[in-house]
């Protein structure tokens, strides 16, 4: 049976933990606000560039560009985006599990992984995968240059036949409570909704003018498109991470409260029992003296 002292010590330790989880929750809430602002600001750009690529690929059906169609599959490069730190609920394990599932469901593919975020770096380092990139995120806010480097790398791998397709796996930010694990195809570039496009086409029958020419525009636009999609994924992932951590820390704080309540009850009961026992002993002693 735990002594009063033991219970007191446990209450104190749980209280300390609760203080930490509460502080982490507050920090995450502040970080989430910034990350959310950034992703909201970045979405128009990503959407616009998708629009342009969509109207382009409509207009240049006769042009074949290597980044649009390679006509080959077999080797896949997976970009896996996680956070650097843990303590954010199932956020990272959801993503890593999705990556594992993708690999196991396509045993005929030769998969290489390009890891971003310390969690995925460490995870894939310990396993027997072909790792093409390892990049921790660092403590600063994500920079566009990171997306640029990764974009250039995957395009190089693609054009040099190291990979035939590129996918990116990340947690899309829905709200602070919910993240959705997304597996998205980056290369070859596919435009999202074929049906929607054909409707748009009739609306824009005039066709576009390209300067200098279609190939020139595609040559520079498609790599840009890939970079922007990666950047968007990085920002989505960052917002999701902070949201997930905030939620996780909130429930941890709540659990700590519950545990403190329970322990306090046990402590009080034990204290009561000790007092009763002592009283009984005194009364017993007094009775014996009287007799």
């Amino acid at each position, binding site marked *: 049976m735990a002594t009063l002292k033991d219970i007191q010590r446990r209450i104190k330790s749980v209280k300390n933990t609760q203080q930490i989880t509460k502080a982490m929750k507050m920090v995450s809430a502040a970080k989430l606000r910034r990350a959310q602002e950034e992703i909201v600001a970045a979405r*128009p750009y990503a959407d*616009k560039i998708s629009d342009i690529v969509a109207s*382009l690929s409509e207009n240049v059906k006769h042009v074949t560009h290597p980044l649009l169609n390679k006509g080959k599959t077999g080797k896949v490069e997976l970009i896996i985006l996680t956070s650097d730190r843990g303590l954010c609920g199932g956020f990272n394990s959801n993503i890593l599990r999705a990556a594992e599932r993708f690999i196991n469901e396509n045993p005929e593919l030769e998969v290489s992984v390009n890891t971003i975020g310390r969690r995925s770096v460490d995870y894939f380092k310990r396993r027997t995968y072909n790792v093409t990139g390892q990049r921790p995120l660092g403590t600063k806010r994500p920079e566009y240059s990171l997306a640029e480097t990764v974009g250039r790398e995957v395009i190089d791998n693609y054009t040099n036949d190291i990979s035939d397709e590129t996918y990116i796996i990340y947690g899309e930010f829905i709200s602070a409570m919910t993240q959705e694990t997304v597996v998205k195809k980056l290369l070859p570039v596919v435009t999202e909704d074929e049906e929607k496009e054909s409707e748009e086409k009739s609306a824009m029958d005039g066709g576009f003018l390209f*300067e200098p020419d279609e190939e020139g*525009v595609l040559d520079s636009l498609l790599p*840009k498109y890939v970079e922007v999609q990666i*950047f968007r994924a990085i920002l989505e992932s960052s917002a999701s991470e902070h949201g997930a951590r905030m939620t996780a820390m909130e429930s941890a704080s709540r659990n700590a409260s519950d545990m403190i309540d329970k322990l306090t009850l046990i402590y009080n009961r034990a204290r009561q029992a000790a007092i009763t026992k002592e009283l009984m002993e005194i009364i017993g002693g007094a009775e014996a003296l009287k007799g």
Partner: protein
Amino acid sequence: MAEKFLLEIVTPKRLLFSEEVETVTVPGVDGEFGVLMEHTPLITPLKPGELSYVSEGGEVTSLAISTGYAEVLPDKTTILVSSAFTADEIDVSVAAEELSSAEEALSSAEKDSVEATRLENAVDLAKAKIAVTEKVKH
């Protein structure tokens, strides 16, 4: 009075500008071009330089932009650039430093390499930054 159309300037970090303008002048890769209402649909890459637009009332505003794209539609022009700076965001002395260091690196860089193109862009952007701030002063 000239007819107005919507101009949007978007960077990965923000929607910088979204307003009606009368005309806009953009640094395209094949040379600078002006856009008015009812322009033929056009998509072109941009090089770093100075973008200026005339807003309603004839006021001219200049921005320094880096590489990107312009999508021109009859009633709307979208400028997608990796970064854009308004005159009051630019520090001339910092821009001058950027210019000299980029020029120096460029002189030692291998010709026609990826690095050289990147440095040329940096030089153009720094020049544009300086040009934009000088316009405001006068």
